[in-house]
């Protein structure tokens, strides 16, 4: 997030797109509802009529995969009506003319056709966002898990810059991070192209810096992304994967493909707290500690580094993940030892500019929001306040392209995936709580009433859902939350797993994110 969570209540316009906030980030979702009650305006864009839609001034029930067109359309109206912030564009940005040129074509009528919404609603939404004194955008995987995911984000950033809604309190471009420490994992270089602090591995000076810090020689090549790993495993060029706390067998697209890939490996190590679907394929499984059993930090969606603390002892001989890696490194001849997580944070601070001012003594209380470059720095609530990281904000106009898979005769429905309030990710944790399983016991498919009538489907019927990757059988939930030919399946359950159907081969060109939100499927009553 460019801004902070408490600013939800300081915005006068919220534009929530591709995020079912009240179910996936419930505490932020509640703040959004509070903001509306206090008088803020709300625009919601989502293929499903989610709870927030009922609070919205404008609800745009867009066809999955069309949000890029929508933001371009919003910018078209804003420019048409002169609602842009000329001063901000002039002083803080570049490449505006290219954007103006590109969005010219995105008339409300055209966008309405692409997104399958009312053109007047697009105009209304554009006016609300454009006229807001402090308009903030909140988005989530509904924007990113597309073949045009990165461009969709760019387009949203363009919208914010066009209206000067960035760098000030109550504004911003705010992705809601789905997992407790996805921010920290990224910050720590859990990515094939960067070291901790997003420092490129191909940059010679950076490599030098890390070689000095770590006392070893390092590779100057970008590593493999997760989908590439799977492909290489199948091609036998990748021999060993070490998995820490992940369950790609359920969470990743095209389960059959993942299984084949993992089975092709020479050696698979899985380190986790439970025997997951992935661990079952492993050669070695290592027992790790859960969050309540260790000291450490999680970094939340607003870049706040916060402490976790050891409350109980780990079961059996389970060990902290970092300790396991330290032991393995030591055995591989890398001698450095650490006594505590706090010592590791001290090392992180040395090599990571954004974390330079962070140590555990400063994290008591509310934690710190990075960038925190010095020991006296208070942390950063709002990014891009005075200037953008690169100096001027660059408008990157992005053209809408349809999703890779579109409905056809064989697979006439568009499936999108997501989460529910009562389960979490692959249910490794939530699946162990009886009450949650009572409330959300099994997978299901949401089908619009019109599609249900056409297919003669009733609530509770068992439905066979097929895609080009495979098929699953799940219960039907006929609901007007969803319309037309769109269907929705939550991805939590291994039984009736949505990711059996999704495609792992359609990736976003830049981030390599799979197009999980749009798959062409067919539905029929299971016999």
């Amino acid at each position, binding site marked *: 997030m460019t801004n902070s*969570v408490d600013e939800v209540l300081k915005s006068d316009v919220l534009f929530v797109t591709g995020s079912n906030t009240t179910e996936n980030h419930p*505490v932020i979702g*509640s703040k959004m509802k*509070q903001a509306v009650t206090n008088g803020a305006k709300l625009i919601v864009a989502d293929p499903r009529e989610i709870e927030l839609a009922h609070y919205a001034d404008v609800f745009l029930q867009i066809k999955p995969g069309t949000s890029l067109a929508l933001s371009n359309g919003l910018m078209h109206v804003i420019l048409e009506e002169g609602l842009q912030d000329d001063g901000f564009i002039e002083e803080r940005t570049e490449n505006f003319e290219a954007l103006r040129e590109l969005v010219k074509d995105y008339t409300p009528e055209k966008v309405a056709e692409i997104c399958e919404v009312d053109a007047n609603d697009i105009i209304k939404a554009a006016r609300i966002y454009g006229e807001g004194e402090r308009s903030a955008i909140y988005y989530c995987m509904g924007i990113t898990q597309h073949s045009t995911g990165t461009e969709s984000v760019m387009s949203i950033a363009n919208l914010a810059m066009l209206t000067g809604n960035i760098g000030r309190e109550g504004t911003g471009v705010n992705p809601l*991070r789905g*997992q*407790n*420490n*996805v921010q*920290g*994992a*990224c910050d*720590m270089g859990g990515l094939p192209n960067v070291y901790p602090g997003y420092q490129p591995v191909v940059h010679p000076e950076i490599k030098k810096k890390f070689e000095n810090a*770590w006392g070893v020689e390092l*590779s100057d090549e*970008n*590593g493999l992304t*997760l989908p590439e790993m799977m492909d290489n495993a199948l091609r036998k*060029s*990748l021999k*060993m*994967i*070490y998995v*820490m706390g992940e369950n*790609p067998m359920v969470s*990743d697209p095209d389960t059959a493909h993942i299984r084949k890939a993992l089975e092709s490996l020479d050696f698979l190590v899985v380190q986790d*707290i439970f025997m997951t679907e992935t661990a079952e394929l*492993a*050669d*070695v*499984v*290592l027992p790790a500690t*859960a969050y*309540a059993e260790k000291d450490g*930090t*999680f970094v939340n969606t607003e870049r*706040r*580094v*916060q*402490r976790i603390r050891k*409350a109980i*002892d780990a*079961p*059996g001989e389970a060990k902290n993940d*970092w300790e396991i890696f330290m032991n*393995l*490194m030591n055995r*591989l001849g890398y001698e450095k030892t650490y006594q505590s997580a706090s010592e*590791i*944070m001290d090392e*992180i601070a040395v090599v990571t500019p954004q974390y330079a001012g962070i140590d555990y003594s400063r994290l008591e209380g*509310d934690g710190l929001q990075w960038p925190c470059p010095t020991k006296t720095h208070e942390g950063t609530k709002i990014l891009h306040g005075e200037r953008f990281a690169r100096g001027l904000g660059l408008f990157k106009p992005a053209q809408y392209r349809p999703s890779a898979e579109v409905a056809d005769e064989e697979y006439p429905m568009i499936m999108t995936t997501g989460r529910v309030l*009562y389960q979490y990710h692959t249910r*490794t*944790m939530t*699946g162990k*709580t009886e*009450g949650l399983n009572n409330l959300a016991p099994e997978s299901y498919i949401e089908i619009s009433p019109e599609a249900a009538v056409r297919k003669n489907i009733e609530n509770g019927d068992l439905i066979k859902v097929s895609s080009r990757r495979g098929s699953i059988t799940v219960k039907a939930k006929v609901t007007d939350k969803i319309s037309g030919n769109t269907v929705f399946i939550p991805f939590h359950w291994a039984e009736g797993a949505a990711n059996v159907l999704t495609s792992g081969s359609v990736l976003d060109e830049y981030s*390599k994110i*799979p197009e999980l939100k749009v798959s062409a499927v067919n539905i029929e009553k299971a016999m």
Partner: protein
Amino acid sequence: MVTLSINGQRVEVEQDTTVLEAAATIGIKIPTFCHDPRLKPHGSCRICVVEVNGGKNLPTACVTPVYEGMEVETEGEEVVTARKEILDLLLADHPLECLTCEKAGECTLQDLCYQYGIERTSYDGERNHYEIDYSNDFYYSDQNKCIKCGKCVMVCDQLQETHAIGFAERGFETHIATPMERGLSESTCVSCGNCVSVCPVDALAPKKKTKFRYWETEKVRTTCSYCGVGCQMDLLVKDNKVVEVQPAEGVNDRMLCVKGKFAFDFLSHPNRLKMPLIRKDGRLQEASWEEAYDTIIGKINSIKEENGPGAFAGLTSARCSTEDNYMMQKFMRAAIGTNSVDHCARL
């Protein structure tokens, strides 16, 4: 700034400060039931009444703003009489089951009765009798114990914005209920438990899976391990087991969701991995750490020799700590020599 005196102590505070807040700045505690700074002023329980400039009526500290020259007495005779009377009245319709009550030790009513020496009620009148609503999976609603402070309703309305519960009936029959008294499981309740977290008595309380007394527990502040909001919370620990979770001050403003509040069972689940496992004869079998390390190191060395570092990849985790992630990528990069580190940030 406004200067006033509280119990003879001078205090200077900002305009629009309440008496309660002003008193807190000089360490004077005024008891409350219905007050919560996150909520709109409610002023229903009246336990925080104070005496102002010797006036006849007793205003409540929680909603009364300070003014220049104000003189407040927080424990004067009139005030104490009123507080005792209020406690007496509350007890007159509250079962005295403190010995077995789950809330004992963390019950505001119990604490204040202790403070003001109210052993039992002096009234022998009618009492309300309600069926306990056990229909929710995580908590129950026992209206027999409710003191009608209304915090649960306000939290549900003003903060959580779920509007699942409200006041039903009026006068002496007033109680908290779901629409049409259809029960919690039939309401719009999303089991966030934020009402439970603010209840001062045992009227809304978690269904305990382990028997414990609050004074037996230790509270450990931590960050929720579910979504990316990073809610702050306290783990209540008894005998090396997390027995309850309570929301804490932080980005979440003392709110949690159903998962953060109630889904901690996995920690002590019998299926937790406790020993390293090594696949032998096609089956994963328990082994010692030394064996496991040796197996892994042996495999790393042989693959590296044959295929070089490019044959390795690691998946770090959005679930693990920052430090764990740092160590894993360092392990992959520094000890194995590959940048093939990724994780499911995109999922």
